[in-house]
């Protein structure tokens, strides 16, 4: 995939570089330069939007704010004060990036409703900016600002050529940023955040940092692109800048083209800009918002994955029909202009892409092997119990008035396999949440190897060596089984690139016996396999303490035996394990030590056999009657 991607990006860049040369050779008039510059502007805007909202899932209605900061930076610094246009462009990008970081600092720190609040915040910001710009005489004051034509190198000939070249540079740079992100940790952190932010953080992804990087890139590119566009506007006004055009168009373009591919927003920009241009030319200006609204609604209902994904399914047919239509209409020459031919060719290409297919995509799922992972029959080699790793001292957690944990003191040492048992509601999962840093304790301390864990960001705790699984598996649904594990390797203690991580991922998958399912999506594998994936993913962070939260829940007896064998293997590799479980048979068999929780307190702890015959434990589990009967 990466090889073909490079060819695509290179083709776009080379094609654009050839355009100015065409001006001289053919009679390539300025209409087409303006037209292409428009596409490039929208490519930069929608790609920058997609870097945040498409990749990370944080939906922004505020692209107009970044664009507007760029436009007004050019207008004020270059137009009013005569600062060099290139410097004004840089200033515009930086100011817009600062705004983006400010928005991120507020919205990304929230614990609940982050996504919704972020969307609403971005909806409000452009209107507040518009008020500031309109009222401040040092910026605009409501009069508008004239932006003169800048000086440009003479060899470019006309201003339109100059503007095209600048737009092309910004457009291609924005594509390159998206392209590189998609192939590096920067993009993959965002994909993980989009699928399940809490899990990503727990695996060691510094989610806040990556969201800030992504919104900064969004702001920077949006601002630079806005500043450049201002050069072509001539006159800048509040009404013309802070309206819905930009925020709306970037959303429609990205949804149309596809949010999961670097070229998706560009494809959307080509389609929407061409459509807009033809609608305006035919005198349907008043209809363009209606058409866009209808396209948005229909797309979300019918093809939420976008055109790029459809093109990818039959690239040759789509490309062939597009070229044939364009060349056919061009050589016939009896109707319209090249831009009309382009519009028709784009339309037919989209039609071909949407033709019902031969279910080609489903074959992969049917091919999947159904043999169960083999069961390990090796006997456990005794693992020495070493120094203490996790020490909880009077750790307590309240939820409102509910005391989920009332001061629990416990130690997990090297080489141990601690069974954490107790009735429902006794605080087992809460204790796991405290140790892994998913929740802060209300009082008490937690340390790992002497490091204070309280208040430490969860991804740091993961880097120190604590990993966990979830009772109900929470895989990243849009990533393959292999990439689920690769994420954990990419963001581990010593970070790796995508390709290295993918290779290494297979080792962890074979540790749990899932290597035959590497290319499946999590939705295609069964519960047992998803639970094994949880373990492989946790192991890929190279933990020293692994917290397994009811890893056997809902499994049949054969699957339980298999999962137990996997847990043993992990234990033998030197990882201390905390094993939350209801099935006492398994706990007895596996654990080197048992801790019993009841109503948020430690009821008993010690050797499995001793603890399990403790009258208090039996009472807690079976009630008084059960206690009496067992005697």
């Amino acid at each position, binding site marked *: 995939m990466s090889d073909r991607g490079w060819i695509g990006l290179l083709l776009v860049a080379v094609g654009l570089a050839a355009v100015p040369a065409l001006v001289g050779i053919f009679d390539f008039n300025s209409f087409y330069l303006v037209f292409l510059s428009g596409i490039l502007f929208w490519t930069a805007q929608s790609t920058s939007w997609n870097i945040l909202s498409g990749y990370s899932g944080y*939906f922004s*209605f505020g692209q107009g704010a970044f664009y507007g900061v760029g436009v007004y930076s050019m207008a004020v610094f270059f137009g009013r004060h005569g600062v060099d246009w290139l410097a004004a462009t840089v200033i515009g990008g930086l100011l817009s990036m600062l705004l983006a970081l400010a928005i991120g600092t*507020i919205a990304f*720190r*929230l*614990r*609940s*409703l982050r996504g*919704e*609040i972020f*969307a*609403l915040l971005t*909806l*409000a910001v452009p*209107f*507040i900016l518009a*008020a500031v710009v309109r*009222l401040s005489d040092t910026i605009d004051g409501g009069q508008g600002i004239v932006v003169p034509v800048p000086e440009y190198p003479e060899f470019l000939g006309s201003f339109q050529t100059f503007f095209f070249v600048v737009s092309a540079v910004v457009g291609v740079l924005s594509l390159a940023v998206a392209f590189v992100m998609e192939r590096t940790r920067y993009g993959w952190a965002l994909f993980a955040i989009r699928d399940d932010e809490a899990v990503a953080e727990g695996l060691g992804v510094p989610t806040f940092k990556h969201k800030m990087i992504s919104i900064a890139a969004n702001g920077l590119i949006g601002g630079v692109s806005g500043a450049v566009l201002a050069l072509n506007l001539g006159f800048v006004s509040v009404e013309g800048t802070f309206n*819905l055009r930009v925020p*709306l168009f970037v*959303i429609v373009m990205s*949804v149309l083209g596809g949010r999961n591919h670097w070229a998706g927003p560009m494809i959307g920009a080509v389609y929407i800009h061409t459509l807009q241009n033809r609608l305006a030319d035919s005198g349907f200006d*008043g*209809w363009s*918002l*209606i058409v*866009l*609204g*209808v*396209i*948005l*609604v229909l797309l*979300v*209902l019918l093809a*939420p994955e976008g055109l790029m994904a459809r093109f990818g399914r039959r690239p040759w047919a789509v490309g062939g029909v597009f070229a044939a239509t364009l060349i056919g209409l061009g050589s016939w020459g009896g109707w319209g202009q090249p831009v009309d031919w382009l519009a028709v060719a784009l339309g037919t290409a989209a039609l071909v892409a949407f033709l019902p297919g031969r279910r080609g995509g489903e074959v992969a799922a049917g091919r999947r092997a159904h043999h169960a992972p083999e069961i390990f029959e090796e006997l456990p080699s005794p693992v020495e119990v070493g120094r203490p790793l996790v020490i909880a001292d009077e750790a307590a957690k309240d939820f409102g008035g509910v005391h989920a944990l009332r001061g629990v003191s416990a130690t997990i040492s090297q080489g141990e396999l601690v069974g954490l048992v107790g009735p429902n509601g006794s605080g087992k999962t809460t204790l796991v949440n405290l140790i892994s840093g998913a929740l802060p304790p209300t009082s008490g301390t937690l340390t790992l190897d002497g490091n204070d864990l309280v208040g430490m960001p969860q991804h740091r705790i993961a880097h120190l060596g604590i990993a966990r699984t979830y009772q109900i598996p929470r895989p990243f649904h849009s990533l393959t089984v292999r990439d689920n594990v690769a994420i954990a390797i990419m963001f581990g203690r010593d970070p790796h690139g995508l390709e290295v991580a993918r290779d290494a991922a297979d080792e962890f998958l074979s540790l749990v016996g899932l290597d035959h399912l590497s290319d499946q999506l999590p939705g295609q594998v069964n519960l047992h396999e998803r639970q094994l994936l949880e373990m492989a993913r946790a192991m890929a962070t190279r933990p020293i303490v692994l917290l397994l939260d009811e890893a056997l829940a809902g499994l049949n007896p054969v699957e339980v035996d298999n999962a137990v064998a996997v847990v043993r293997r992990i234990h033998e590799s030197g990882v201390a394990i905390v094993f939350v479980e209801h099935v006492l048979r398994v706990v007895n068999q596996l654990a080197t030590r048992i801790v019993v929780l009841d109503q948020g307190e430690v009821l008993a702890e010690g050797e499995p056999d001793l603890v399990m015959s403790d009258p208090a434990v039996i009472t807690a589990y079976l009630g008084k009657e059960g206690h009496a009967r067992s005697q």
Partner: protein
Amino acid sequence: MSQLQATIFGALSGSLFAVMALGLSVVWGFLKIINLAHFGMILIGAYLTFELASTTGIDPIITVVIGAIAMFLFGAIVQAGFERWRVSEFNSLLISYGLLIITVQVVSNVWTADFQRMDSSVNPYAAQSLALGPLRFPLPTLIAAGFAVILVVGAKLILERTYSGRALQAFGQDRDIAGAFGIDHTKLGILLAGAAGATAAIGGMLHSLGESLHPDAPFEWVGRVFAIVILGGIGNVTGTLYAGLLVGGISGLTAAVWSPSASPFVVFSMVVLALVFRPTGLFPSKTGH
């Protein structure tokens, strides 16, 4: 005295925004849908009042009956569509955004993009005001405040006293469990979305009594209305009214002592602070929203 006047007048104006926010908040809280098309429904409601009152001479307040029925259908049909195509929460946001821009453009094509207001001959309320001691208040604002109280009290009673209301609360808290107890969420959701649409029409009518209309108005309401929804607590009907009065009062006071241009800053800073310190709203309700 002028500051007191400005604060109370602002609070009363805020109650109009509380009416606009009410349906949005309830649909977000109970159906988990952020329905941006709600603003389009308010806009249509306002223009329907304008059109009916101007052409037929009916009292503008009476015209709301037609607007409310029309917007009930609008809201119910959109919700039925969401159910029919099993639209995810996130996609419903996108679709309602698409519907909003379609609405704005259609209104602009039908009624032009110019500012318009009802002639004083058909709108007897606009020019009148009521004196309360030394303070004077325009009649449209007082009418809006009256409607706000009636709607909020009515909504509270329906949600707490009727089977449908309680079922909706259960549904808002946990869909799966509520479904397991036999609550027909599809029908209830459509009814609720319809009712929210009707309140949007009322909001539009109240807006048209005192203000000029133009098609881009929804984008001017968005910030303040969402501020009220968030400050009041999502899905909390009485909180919405209190938040409306608070936001309006503070806007009015800020405008009087500082500058009208400063009021968005003050309101917006309040929202940010509220989000950080009280993410469930300033006025927690007993029902736990």
